[in-house]
């Protein structure tokens, strides 16, 4: 093989590696952005819900729709965290490495959230505001518990 061939193979390999690496980064970036999108959906629904629950004249349909939306998203949470999509990637995420090093705890927290969200959905369907408020508190606590352990604080 001549020099020309060798350098062509070298260049092709280098290009392939760079392309593959950036494609992988793009994949991870996509995962992170999709995850953030899902959490923003939950945040929006939780905001709408808590505003109604604070209001002296809460609108039950808004409460029920928000609770249903959270209940629909909560069970998917674990699928948003494939290994290698956390802080160590250096990408813009607040998912701590502990999510994967303490996966059992993370799974337990996620299950507690899904459970609380489902109960909230059921209680909201019942329409009793004091029960809804109590269950919203319980669910909010599951958000906090998990965020304290596994979400990098920026603020």
């Amino acid at each position, binding site marked *: 093989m001549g020099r020309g061939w060798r350098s062509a193979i070298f260049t092709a390999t280098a290009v392939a590696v760079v392309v593959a690496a950036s494609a992988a980064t793009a994949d991870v970036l996509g995962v992170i952005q999709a995850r953030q999108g899902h959490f*923003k959906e*939950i*945040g*929006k*629904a*939780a*905001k709408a*819900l*808590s*505003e109604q629950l604070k209001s002296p004249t809460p609108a039950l349909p808004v409460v029920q729709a928000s609770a249903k939306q959270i209940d629909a998203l909560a069970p998917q949470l674990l699928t948003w965290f494939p290994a290698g999509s956390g802080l160590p990637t250096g990408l813009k995420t607040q998912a701590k490495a502990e999510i994967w090093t303490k996966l059992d705890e993370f799974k337990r927290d996620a299950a507690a959230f899904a459970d609380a969200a489902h109960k909230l959905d059921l209680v909201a369907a019942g329409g009793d505001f004091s029960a809804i408020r109590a269950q*919203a508190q319980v669910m*909010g606590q599951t*958000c*906090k518990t998990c*965020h304290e352990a596994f*979400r990098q604080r*920026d*603020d």
Partner: protein
Amino acid sequence: MTDGPTPRQPGRRGLIVKVWDAPTRWVHGLIIVLIALAWWTESHDQMDWHIRIGCALLGVVLFRLAWGVLGGANARFANFVRSPRAVLRYAIKLATGAKAEADLGHNPMGGWSVVALLGVMAAEIGFGLFCVDVDGLESGPLADRVSFHAGRAAAHWHTVLFNILLALIALHLCAIAFYGLVRRDNLIGPMLTGRKRLATAEGDMQPPLRGSAVALSISAVAAAGLAVWAAYGFKL
């Protein structure tokens, strides 16, 4: 330092003049206490109290802004917000250690520090009203007017401005220490008692104009009313 007797205080060293009126001192004290409480409650997850304290602080800052227009002479912005040239001249005096005339009220640099502190506090509280926490569950009294996204952005700026505020407070404390240790000018005493003892009677010091009771009432009622109204999301 001369021990010349002065007509007003015979037999005593120097002349005692009133520099800070009572409302200005109360504002200062309340700001210290309320910022400490706001910080503590936020870091101990007492968000209901954090928001109440923030609204109280809003009232205090609004009062100070009103008092800066209607209040006593040394509290008025028009009397202590000085030109950049005056600030520079004063800074050169400080840097060269030259003996400045005694500062009755805010000096040209201190005046801008007051403006900066009040401005950052006002912005900090303003963003606080619209904040939403990451879970969408805790929120400021006006957060229902904005989207989740905007509320999160407000929370971001609320954090950034708090750090700027802490830096300004640190600078403020350094300045007080500098005056006390280097220039032998105690700034803390007058802020507590309202009175300052001058080493010598320099000129004929008029006691500063006192704010009127009417101005005090208008400022206090307007500020408290606005703060409470904001706390209820302008829904009263």
